[in-house]
């Protein structure tokens, strides 16, 4: 399994961040230690075993997707993508569900921890690759990107906020209660989830992370796998793609 290499810049900024930030020196020491040994590695490994035992491993996955095993990493780096036989732009997790159904197995729920592990494993096959999402490849992916961008910019909920309220270019780096607002592209968000979330002591996926922001900001939390969520994932992943951030799974987050 490939290990996550965290950008030096991030480490430096964490190390020099002032008092007002939430990370204490002790936290930072723990963070450094965890970098060497990401607790999520075991979930990724478990995901690989589940895929092997439950579905026939990479070979079966490549076959299902109609690519060779050699092409698999680059192909995975293009997710979420339009899969004709599924009729939609889908995430890796939804592909795994379809494989389960095709093989007569019980479908694992999208929000199930086992699904998070399998998703993390499959995405880690594309480690070190850059995203290969082509939003002009077909009208379906174009529509998904547009819906994702729209969802990102739609103000709603009890405080009238949108994702853009806190993640627009003009306020990146400013401080929201002790948290510096990240540039989602620069942070490589799309390329570093599934990640181990230290504050939650668990493996979380990108869509699960979106739900976290929705809950905190009082936006009605929408379900994983919905067209809007997949669109958000497409949109946020292209932000990492524009910044040429390589896929590094599992990530490690505060």
């Amino acid at each position, binding site marked *: 399994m490939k290990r996550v290499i965290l950008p030096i810049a991030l480490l430096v900024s964490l190390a020099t961040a002032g008092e*007002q930030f*939430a990370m204490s020196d002790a936290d930072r020491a723990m963070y450094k230690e965890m970098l060497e040994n990401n607790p999520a590695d075991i979930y990724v490994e478990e995901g690989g075993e589940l895929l092997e035992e439950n579905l026939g491993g990479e070979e079966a996955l490549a076959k299902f997707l109609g690519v060779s095993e050699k092409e698999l990493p680059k192909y995975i780096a293009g997710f979420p993508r339009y899969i004709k*036989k*599924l*009729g*939609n732009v*889908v995430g890796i997790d*939804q*592909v795994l*569900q*379809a494989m389960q*159904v*095709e093989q007569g197995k019980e*479908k694992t*729920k*999208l929000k199930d921890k086992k699904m998070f592990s399998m998703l993390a494993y499959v995405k880690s096959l594309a480690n070190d690759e850059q995203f290969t999402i082509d939003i002009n490849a077909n009208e379906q992916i174009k529509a998904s990107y547009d819906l994702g961008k729209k*969802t990102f910019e*739609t*103000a*709603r*909920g*009890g*405080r*009238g*906020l949108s994702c853009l*309220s*806190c993640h*627009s270019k003009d*306020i990146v780096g*400013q*401080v*929201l*209660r*002790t948290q510096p*607002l990240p540039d989602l592209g620069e942070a490589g968000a799309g390329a570093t989830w599934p990640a181990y979330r230290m504050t939650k002591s668990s493996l979380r996926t990108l869509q699960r992370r979106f739900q976290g922001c929705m809950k905190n900001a*009082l*936006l*009605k939390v*929408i*379900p994983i*796998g*919905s*067209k*809007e*969520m*997949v669109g958000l994932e497409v949109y946020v992943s292209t932000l990492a793609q524009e910044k040429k951030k390589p896929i590094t799974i599992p990530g490690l987050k505060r």
Partner: protein
Amino acid sequence: MQRNIQLLAFATMFVTTTSLVNAADLTKAYDMPDASKMIEKDLLAKPTKFTMPKGCVKDDAASIARGEFIFHNLNGKKAKGTPPEGLVKFVEKKGKDGKVKKKAKQYGNCVACHNIEGAKGGGNIGPDLTNYKKTFIDSKVRDNAFVFQKIADPRIDNPKTHMTVNLTTKLFTEQEICDLASYVVSDKSKK
């Protein structure tokens, strides 16, 4: 022999038809829940101009205390200490199933974006509101009505604002906006 071939042919037919059925089924083989209606119901209404009610912003200790509590806390579950009179930590809400549930009351968490007297971990997305009375009210740069409208719906003054909308969304009552405004413009120098 003859029988074997027949069997084989039958088996092949069986396999191809099942896989054909499966192939057709795969468009429904995964979960893709609908979120569009949830979002539709959750949308933010247009920028709304409010008239500040009479006696809204006042030098009343109880009102200022409520404003202060709302300003510095996120919600009743996370808030430390007892809320001042007239403010609660939990509200009861009737769910769709008719059952009454206790839900944490949402507060302003204004401190997430603003520094102000006594702020702990104040953010800097919004301007520093320290010394607000002296700097903005006494100097007549702002008045109470401006502060009231800003908190109620900041988009009237600034359509591109990053600030939260608090009255148009019905997160707060008019009284609570008055409490917040009273707190912001209050003289905190003697405290």
